[in-house]
């Protein structure tokens, strides 16, 4: 029986007006990979912050190596061998890999840094991972996946006992995910325990031993991975049965071509030709960096088109700026909602009418009651959960934020809606709502383009899938021929 390295005892965390954690108790064994899952706002990150010393629990204690702590400071947590790798990297792009690994922990005597020791140590770590990274390279030359490995190496170099991985696979391709899993298996053998946070349930079955499910600040379940299944985990997470993960299509795409591109070049896209029909959901599959986002920014006129034609509703479209695209009914929901989709500190109302405020104005003066009326209608229609229309959007959940952006384009009357990774960072229950929403849009006669790195999401949603690789469109798949393996092969460039 492996010994226990960490146990939470009745951890409670209170913020003004809310109890974010309610008596969490569970433990972690040596060399174990424990999945921590739950919807956004379930309290996962709060718990992790208690462990890394960022927060002080209001009540309860954390036991590490048989020592009980009322609370940990970041420094103490580090000393006790706790390391975390978050979605946002904590690395310096301009420095060599090796210096990133030993950042704040440079080996050497006095003021002299022992560079050779650093090099050999980092090489050793990479060798043990089975990856080939030259530690002298500048960090920015690496792919996101390799940067993630550097992050892990950095944690390992500090004599790590417990590694926390927060959504580590979000920026990774399938192949890179495999490499990461291999590394996890290797460090596990060395006796390092891992707390693994992910929204992708299939990963939990691949890599984890045990799973703790949280909901509304409470632990609602603890299972051995081999004794549970996807359905049960989803039920525990959202507190109800989710019978159909992907909703059933109630309408069919029409034959009417609403958007057509012919030999489109620009922003890294090469010779793109495709058609989008009214009422269709067209998926764009590909690996990270396949040029899908770049293509869409050309369509949305946010990047320069070098050659080729675009027809909207049969008429040529030669816009130069996003507002030209919007005038012709093209809308884009960017991948990075917080940085590019919403004014985070502005209200729900302001965000929803941002693109259409002129419609609510006479002689430049806003008609506030008309604006409010429209905002209310769309908030009801999309079931946006917000305490008031004046609430700054940064305090809403990811799912609700995404709905606001959809509402914005619905008010603007756009009929070609491009979603770039619409469900990234959104929890399971809200994902389902977004899928329903996309169906609602096409049922109203709009057309939808979805970029997603989640092949299952595209297979479940799209009427047709276009596959891109290295800036080129390498093929289409119809609904009846969907096959994850084939799509993956196409996306990897194997035709």
């Amino acid at each position, binding site marked *: 029986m492996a010994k226990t390295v960490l146990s939470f005892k009745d951890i409670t965390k209170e913020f003004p007006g809310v109890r974010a954690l309610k008596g969490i108790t569970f433990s972690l064994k040596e060399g174990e990979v424990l999945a921590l899952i739950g919807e956004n706002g379930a309290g996962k990150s709060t718990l992790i912050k208690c462990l890394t010393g960022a927060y002080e629990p209001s009540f309860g204690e954390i036991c590490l190596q048989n020592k009980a702590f009322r609370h940990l400071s970041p420094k103490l947590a580090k000393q006790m061998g706790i390391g975390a790798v978050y979605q946002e990297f904590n690395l310096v792009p301009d420095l060599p890999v090796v210096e990133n690994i030993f950042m704040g922990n440079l080996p050497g005597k006095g003021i002299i840094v022992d560079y050779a020791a650093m090099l050999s140590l980092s090489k050793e770590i990479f060798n043990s991972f089975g990856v080939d990274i030259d530690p002298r390279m500048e960090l920015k030359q690496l792919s996101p996946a390799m940067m993630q490995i550097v992050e892990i190496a950095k944690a390992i170099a500090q004599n790590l006992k417990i590694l926390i991985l927060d959504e580590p696979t979000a920026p990774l391709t399938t192949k890179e995910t495999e490499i990461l899993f291999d590394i996890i298996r290797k460090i596990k053998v060395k006796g390092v325990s891992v707390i693994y946070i992910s929204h992708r349930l299939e990963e939990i079955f691949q890599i984890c031993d045990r799973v703790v499910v949280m909901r509304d600040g409470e632990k609602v379940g603890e299972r051995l991975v081999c004794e549970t299944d996807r359905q049960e985990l989803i039920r525990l997470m959202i507190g109800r049965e989710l019978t159909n993960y992907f909703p059933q299509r109630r309408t069919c795409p029409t034959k009417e071509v609403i958007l057509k591109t012919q030999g489109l070049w620009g922003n890294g896209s090469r010779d793109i030709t495709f058609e989008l029909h009214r009422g269709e959901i067209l998926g764009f599959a590909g690996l990270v960096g396949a040029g899908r986002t770049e293509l869409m920014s050309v369509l949305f006129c946010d990047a320069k088109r070098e050659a080729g034609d675009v027809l909207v509703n049969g008429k040529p479209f030669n816009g130069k700026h*996003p507002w030209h695209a*919007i005038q012709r009914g093209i809308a884009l929901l960017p991948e990075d909602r917080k940085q*590019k989709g919403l004014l985070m500190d502005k209200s729900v109302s*302001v965000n929803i009418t941002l693109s259409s*405020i002129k419609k609510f104005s006479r002689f430049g003066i806003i008609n506030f009651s008309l604006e409010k009326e429209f905002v209310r209608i769309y908030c009801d229609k999309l079931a946006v959960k917000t305490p008031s229309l004046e609430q700054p959007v940064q305090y809403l959940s990811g799912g609700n934020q995404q709905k606001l952006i959809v509402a914005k384009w619905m008010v*603007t009357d756009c009929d070609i809606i491009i979603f770039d990774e619409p469900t990234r960072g959104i929890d399971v229950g809200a994902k389902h709502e977004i899928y329903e929403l996309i169906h609602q849009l096409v049922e109203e006669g709009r057309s939808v383009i979805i970029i997603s790195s989640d092949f299952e999401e595209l297979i479940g949603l799209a009427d047709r899938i276009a596959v891109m690789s290295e800036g080129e469109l390498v093929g289409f798949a119809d609904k009846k021929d969907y096959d994850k393996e084939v799509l993956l092969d196409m996306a990897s460039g194997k035709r």
Partner: protein
Amino acid sequence: MNKIKNTAVTLLSKCISQIILMILVIFFALQVKGIFFTTTNLISIVRQVSTMGIAALGVSFLMITGNLDFSMGSIYAFVGTFTAILNLLNIHIVPAMLIAALCGIGISCFTCWISISFKIPRLISSMAMQQLINGLCVIIAGNKTVYGLPESIKWLGQGYIGIIPVSSILFAALAVLVAFVFNKTYFGRYLFAVGGNEDVARLSGINVNKIKYLASIIAGLLASIAGLISMSRTFSGSPYAGGTLSTDVISAAVLGGVSIMGGTGKTSGLVTGILIIGTLTVGLNMMNMNANSQDVFKGAMLLVAVILDSRSKGIKKLAMRR
């Protein structure tokens, strides 16, 4: 208990500039008894801050779109000097004022063009312009103050309607107008959107560059008007009139809660900020503090304001966190 504390914190962060103003007024009222807190003196404060206030209204358009501009003082000095020179060249004072004001707007737009075309922060391009225009201004004025203005323009800077100075009425009217533009028009909404997050504004279909140019035109116009009022008050065109105006207007705006990062700000706060600077100047003068010590004081004030600006965001976040 926590709720009360949160409400108090939010209230405090909202009214911090008003509280500072009140403290200052009480302080000076006690320090210089019988002189400070008199109608004549208070009106004189309002009159003195009017020119700076109008320029600050202008610079707030730029600050809200996320563009710090340090060249307002040079436009202010240039417009007055240039009008006086044109007047000496036998050009009627009205067209002279118009031409000079157009130049003021032109300077502001040029600064904007540089920062957009060459992707230089306006903070930098405006600092270069400030120096350039100041130097140019001294050269064309022949290194001296230009006199010889007609009597007819005196009313602008020196006239009164009842007991209220004309310039103060103009300032009040412009402040109301600016508040209206910020809060009630879609142009105001666009200004805040561009300052809040340029990417979001652009991807929402807002013509970001057009908004920036419009803000520059307004800022240039208001700095020009302020310059003309100052010219009328001193009855001369001085190439040195700008002085510390460029930083004073920014201090006033920041003190009034206009964020240096863009995206937030209120006209009421701005006016309070201007009154703080005005009260401070007059009060310190009355206490016989010399100009250099006043600069130290004002500089410290700007530091405090900027710190409050960055802190208040933290405070708000704390209060809003559920």
